[in-house]
């Protein structure tokens, strides 16, 4: 028949168009800044990263993981076999059968995608994504029918022109979505960009169960500090944005979104895609930034992002809690992008909102955000009889006090911790007035220059003394010391030093028997995971074990562990204070109240401040060290 050749030609044409589109997409990413990535090693590692790391995240939703395995696996396998059977014309029945098998698997998967899309949750994007399951079904059905003759089930259908015509339409729709759409920005783009994103990820340490949470330093000699235009991102960051599947898991977890602040991590990533490709957000079919209409954002690779694409409040709403990053199945780095753009606003424009500029100025002039006299840093410990490194020079444990030293509520935590350490006869000392702000707030507010200066000066101080461990009650300082100072530690001041959060350290003391505690006799207790302890540093167990060692059975909140909801205190959010409909701390306290707990155990002075700021009646908020100190077993003399 005349048009027998049509299906094979269509397949080849669509494949070629798809490749052209893909190359064009690659050129869009290449507009970004250079970043060294081992391309070959990345590509080799990619299948493993997909099967293990990515799937580990998708697996949290069993329905979706099975659906995706069937659909994605079926498609990849069937596509290879389609080429073999229908383009290279390999006439072996067994191959044809294999193809039909792969297509059936895919069809099953596509059916479940379809089912989910019948009544999709709010977090999912609609628009072209609603079309996708239908295209998938059409693709698999079309090729099943097309392959039947090769499998020897149907006689050669070459007789029917009508049949070929219908199948050709199916090929155009199905493969159009899958191959053409993949290259030209359709929903299937996620497969192509996602695979490369996994291969060339900027934080390859995250794969294989690792953790990489420290922000990357800014090159202060650069022409522009931070990210002004999409093309100021690293090329693999742009690639990462393109990998987004718009599943909205980030949106569902984002505390700022839930509070009605103008941030939606999914929309932000989609706006970045608009920026890198150029155009408007008119085609975006997901939830908007709360309080902002979709359709007004415009951008291009070389246009300033905050001049029309993303508003400044959106960037300042983020608490850097990393819930979105933790939840993202494509392992996109939202927080990196947000801080990159904040850096431009702070270091180039000088537009840190609300109290931001005052706090930064204080940090620069006094090394603490409150602008207190640096000489009064150790006043809190006047009655604590603590050794100071300047005199002691060498110690077992260096207690990093952090800026809680200036805050009377936090001082209660500090005193409790000191009492516990004394009780366990720990050889401890503090830096006293030589300590400076860790730089956490400055860095999250985008002032990397000030962060770097603080880090270098703190490291110079630390380098003068000998100690085995640094312990701190502040997870933010803990994160900086443990994950972010290494970039500046040229003299190796922290080399071989164990950086610990006080809950980890106290847990070691309790488990080794150095601290004896009585059982806790209060009411129900719940535990709030601080973001910078949990998601940033993976410490979920020590605080819980401590509470259990008091005989407490923790009434876990629905969102706990790696899914813990932020208190609203991170990332300088209380300083920039972007208005929303609710307060994040109120929502978190509601989580705690729902468990029926009378006491919220916390491991962070910032969380303590935020949660205690919630109006009563509410559970009591106490740092774990405060709870422990009340249960110290009396020594019998």
């Amino acid at each position, binding site marked *: 028949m005349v048009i027998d050749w049509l299906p094979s030609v269509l397949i080849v044409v669509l494949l070629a168009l798809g490749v052209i589109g893909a190359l064009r997409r690659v050129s869009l990413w290449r507009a970004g800044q250079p970043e060294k990535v081992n391309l070959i090693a990345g590509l080799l590692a990619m299948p493993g990263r997909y099967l293990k790391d990515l799937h580990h995240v998708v697996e949290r939703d069993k329905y979706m993981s099975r659906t995706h395995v069937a659909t994605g696996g079926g498609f990849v396998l069937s596509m290879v076999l389609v080429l073999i059977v229908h383009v290279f014309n390999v006439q072996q029945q067994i191959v044809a059968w294999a193809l039909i098998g792969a297509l059936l698997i895919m069809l099953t998967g596509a059916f479940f995608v379809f089912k989910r899309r019948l009544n999709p949750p709010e977090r999912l994007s609609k628009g072209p994504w609603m079309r996708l399951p239908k295209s998938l079904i059409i693709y698999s059905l079309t090729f099943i029918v097309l392959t039947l003759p090769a499998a020897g089930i149907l006689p050669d259908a070459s007789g029917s022109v009508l049949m070929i015509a219908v199948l050709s339409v199916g090929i155009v729709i199905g493969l159009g979505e899958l191959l053409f759409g993949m290259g030209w920005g359709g929903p299937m783009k996620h497969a192509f960009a996602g695979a490369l994103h996994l291969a060339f990820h900027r934080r390859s340490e995250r794969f294989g169960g690792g953790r990489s949470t420290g922000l990357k330093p800014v090159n202060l000699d650069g022409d522009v500090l931070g990210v002004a235009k999409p093309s100021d991102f690293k090329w693999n960051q742009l690639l990462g944005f393109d990998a987004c599947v718009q599943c909205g898991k980030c949106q569902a977890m984002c505390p700022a979104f839930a509070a009605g602040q103008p941030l939606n991590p999914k929309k932000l990533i989609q706006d970045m895609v608009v920026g890198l490709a150029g155009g408007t957000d008119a085609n975006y079919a997901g939830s908007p930034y709360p309080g902002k209409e979709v359709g007004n954002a415009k951008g291009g690779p070389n246009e300033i992002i905050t001049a029309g694409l993303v508003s400044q409040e959106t960037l300042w709403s983020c608490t850097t809690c990393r819930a979105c990053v933790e939840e993202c199945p494509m392992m996109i780095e939202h927080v990196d992008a947000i801080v990159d753009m904040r850096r431009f606003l702070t270091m180039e424009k000088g537009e840190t909102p609300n109290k931001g*500029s005052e706090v930064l100025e204080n940090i620069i002039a006094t090394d603490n955000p409150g602008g207190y006299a640096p000489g009064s840093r150790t006043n809190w410990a006047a009655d604590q009889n603590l050794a100071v490194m300047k005199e002691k020079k060498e110690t077992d444990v260096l207690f990093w006090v952090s800026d809680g030293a200036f805050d009377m509520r936090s001082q209660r935590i500090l005193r409790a911790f000191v009492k516990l350490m004394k009780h366990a006869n720990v050889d401890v000392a503090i830096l006293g007035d030589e300590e400076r702000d860790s730089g956490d707030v400055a860095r999250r507010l985008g002032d990397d220059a000030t962060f770097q200066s603080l880090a270098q000066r703190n490291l110079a101080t630390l380098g003068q003394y000998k100690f085995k461990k640094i312990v701190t009650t502040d997870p933010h300082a803990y994160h900086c010391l443990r994950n972010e100072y290494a970039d500046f530690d040229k003299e190796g001041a922290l080399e071989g030093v164990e950086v610990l959060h006080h809950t980890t350290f106290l847990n070691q003391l309790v488990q080794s028997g150095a601290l004896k505690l009585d059982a806790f006799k209060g009411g129900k207790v719940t535990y709030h995971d601080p973001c910078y302890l949990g998601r940033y540093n993976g410490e979920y167990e020590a605080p819980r074990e401590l509470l259990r060692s008091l005989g407490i059975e923790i009434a876990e909140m629905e969102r706990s562990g790696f899914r813990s909801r932020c208190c609203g205190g991170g990332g300088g959010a209380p300083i920039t204070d972007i208005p929303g409909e609710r307060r994040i701390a109120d929502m978190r306290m509601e989580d705690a109240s729902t468990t029926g707990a009378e006491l919220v155990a916390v491991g962070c002075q910032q969380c303590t401040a935020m949660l205690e700021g919630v109006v009563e009646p509410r559970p009591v908020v106490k740092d774990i060290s405060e709870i422990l100190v009340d249960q110290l077993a009396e020594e019998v003399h």
Partner: protein
Amino acid sequence: MPHKVISLISVGRHPQSGRSRRADQDSRAVELGLKLAGTDLDVVHAGSSQEPVLRQYAGMGLPKVTVLEQDESADALVSIADYLKSEKADIVLTGVRAESGESSGMTPYILSEQLGWPIVARVADIVDIKEGEAQVLLALPRGQRRQVTVKLPFIASIDNAAEAARQSAFGPGLRAKMDSQKGSTVEDSVRVDWSEAPAKARPKRLKIVKAKTAADRFKAATAKPQGGSGKVMKNESAQEQAQAIFDLLIEEKVIR
């Protein structure tokens, strides 16, 4: 016609840490200058162009800072006066009092004397400039303002009531040009003999709260200072005027 505005800046000192910073009033003078002249504002410092604090000023969005290079021991006044004579400035803005150095608050006055220009002290805002005259708001205690009209050119010292300085951005500050010019070499002969020591806290008069009710306290905190008991002595002889001051000092127990 745009007016030529010059803001004079000095190295400030943070009250808590004693660390160098952009001086509060001087940075307000820059802020006001930027409002009047935009980036045409000429910002002038007498000292070293290596001074890092100048970058903090420049971070407010100044493309360049004019530095009259001079030793620390040289008299800044001479450098600045020479510079102002050579530039045809319309308005010169300074702080009321420097946060470091002699901190006498005399700079604007001596400059105005040397240039023969009027000075307006403690300015909160310059509202309008037209036909060679500027409408200036002076800051008075308790948020009060007085509007005066001044002929250009003039010198204004900027009060803490003026608009606060904008945030300093690191990047532009780093990249701003330091336009070095030769400053004076005349030694500040007065200051050379001085030695600096931390100030002792001045004794304060005890505040006796007379108010019995909250309403009274509120009134005391908000009411305008009522002169009343003072008197103006214009026509009396010098002898009588001196006697009146002497009596007051005894009455106030300043001298015994």
